[in-house]
């Protein structure tokens, strides 16, 4: 019944195919672990829905009540709560993605990261597995919020949901990759609080989630164009509420379309991935 104990005698990685298979196994199990932990942690699943709902209901209703007239002028007959909705979906994606990536810091603190780093798989496989895991979880978290769409009078159809899922995944992938790059260098959870205050929150506020990115002061419109989250919010709003409300981020008098937004997110993700792999390799 026992398997023969066969210490790896010859070259363990005989060919690039074998190495690729080993790395694929690594990517899969790192992804699987993140999804499994997310699924098992119901408290986190439910509590992380609380914040977006709070923003939507309290913030949305409150602002509508006090600034109703001005908002109507800007948004036409779309209520502010509806305007806010795509931004809140993006917010759920942003925070879940960042928290998934930052779990690397916990793994470092509790020692599990070493189990991963001494494994015979490449750093690229580790980063890719982690990025895919975080993106899957973040996409799922955003997708749950789509349940609210009918209540807000936003109609969905299967194709639209599919497009939204793709967009959420891409946004999440870009942000998780960025989070992994940060986590690779972060030595403590205390430092994470800094990152949260000076990077993640500004990214959220400047993404166009709360207000249209039009007619802003010059400095601000420059910064919003550098914010990767903006390239997720705008196409999501276009898909959910139509092109009138989200005509596309303007760069040199050209309004970006959904495909272009996607390409920008993908390019950002690629750069972050390369830097993250490099950061992990440089650590030794």
């Amino acid at each position, binding site marked *: *019944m*026992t*398997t023969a*104990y*066969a*210490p*790896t*005698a010859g*070259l*363990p*990685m005989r060919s690039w195919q*074998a*190495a690729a*298979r*080993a790395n694929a*196994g*690594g990517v*899969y*199990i*790192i992804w699987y*672990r993140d999804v*499994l*932990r997310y699924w*098992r*942690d119901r408290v986190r699943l439910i509590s992380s829905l609380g914040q977006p709902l709070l923003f939507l209901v309290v913030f949305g209703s409150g602002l509508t009540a006090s600034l109703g007239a001005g908002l109507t002028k800007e948004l036409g007959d779309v209520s502010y709560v509806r305007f806010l909705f795509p931004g809140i979906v993006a917010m759920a994606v942003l925070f879940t993605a960042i928290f998934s990536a930052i779990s690397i810091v916990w*793994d470092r603190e*509790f*020692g*599990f*990261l*070493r*189990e*991963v*780093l*001494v*494994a*015979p*798989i*490449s750093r690229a496989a580790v980063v890719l597995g982690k990025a895919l895991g975080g993106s899957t979880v973040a996409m799922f978290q955003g997708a749950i919020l789509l349940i609210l769409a009918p209540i807000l009078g936003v109609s969905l159809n299967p194709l639209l949901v599919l497009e939204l899922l793709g967009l959420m995944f891409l946004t999440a992938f870009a942000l998780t990759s960025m989070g992994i790059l940060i986590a690779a260098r972060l030595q403590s959870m205390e430092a994470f609080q800094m990152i949260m205050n000076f990077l993640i929150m500004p990214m959220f506020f400047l993404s166009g989630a709360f207000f249209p990115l039009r007619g802003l002061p010059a400095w601000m419109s420059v910064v919003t164009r550098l914010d990767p989250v903006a390239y997720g919010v705008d196409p999501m709003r276009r898909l959910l509420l139509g092109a009138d409300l989200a005509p596309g981020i303007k760069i040199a008098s050209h309004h970006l379309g959904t495909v272009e937004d996607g390409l920008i997110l993908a390019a950002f993700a690629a750069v972050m991935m390369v830097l993250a792999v490099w950061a992990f390799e440089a650590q*030794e």
Partner: protein
Amino acid sequence: MSSIEAIDLVKSFGRLTAVDHVSFQVEDGEVFGFLGPNGAGKTTTINVLCTLMRPTAGRARVAGYDVASQRNAVRQSIGLVFQDPSLDDQLTAYENLQFHAHVYNVPGRQRAQRIEEVLHVVGLWDRRGAVVRTFSGGMKRRLEIARGILHHPRVLFLDEPTLGLDPQTREHVWEYILEVQRAHHITIFMTTHYMDEAEHCDRIAIIDQGKIVALDTPDALKRMVGVDIVTVQTEDSEQAAREIQERYGLEPQRDDTRLRLEVEAGAEFIPRLVRELGVAIRSVDLHRPTLDDVFLKLTGRAIREGEADPLALMRLHGRLWRGGRR
């Protein structure tokens, strides 16, 4: 063929040289121990051998692969049990092993069977579905040993495998380690600062301040010290030491308020000493040489002196902290 071969290995951090031109060989199937106080360079040596750190100078081969240039091959050939736990305590025992099987490329057909085998070896099969958070320290360590051999490594590295465990659990963990070693003929490289654990080794390298000061079998090392160790405590150590040196031609070693003497036949020597010594004797002790005596002879210090008691350190920090604020 040797499983581990280190030639003039050096690892420094800035000015500090943690591993200082260390050379040794470990044969296939051997249980090889690194014995020394904390901070002697034991863990750093393991980190270099298992590719977690790059050597500053020198070369090392593990399972025939170079630790600097063939890192993935080395990683595939070794199992590791770290000093600190490295399990995911939100996953079950089984899931932790599943994770390991995937990242170490254990073929899909064999995964379930191997996981079952190693869980039986360490006696955790019944607890396979329990989340690791609920495990005791000893159970976690056993699970890590199981994980360390899951991918059938040629060399198993154990860095202080029983640190922080109570004596009874330590004994159990050792039974499992030796069981694994016998069953699979794995080479074991371990570090420890417990003398009794070092006795399990076929050969021991005694390491102090980054250098190997002696390397041999436990018995041969103990023979270096002499036959018997007599420890005397007297009213006046100075006077007693002088007298003993003159009368018996021995070289007494000071250890706190006691004198250590290495003598051929301790049982016969003690009555003579009591009768003839001009200084009043408070206590006399006779024991066979231990590895601690070997360390003391080679370095002039006891291993336990180098050991920092974490609680005492915490109390000290607490005092300093409060003192500084006042």
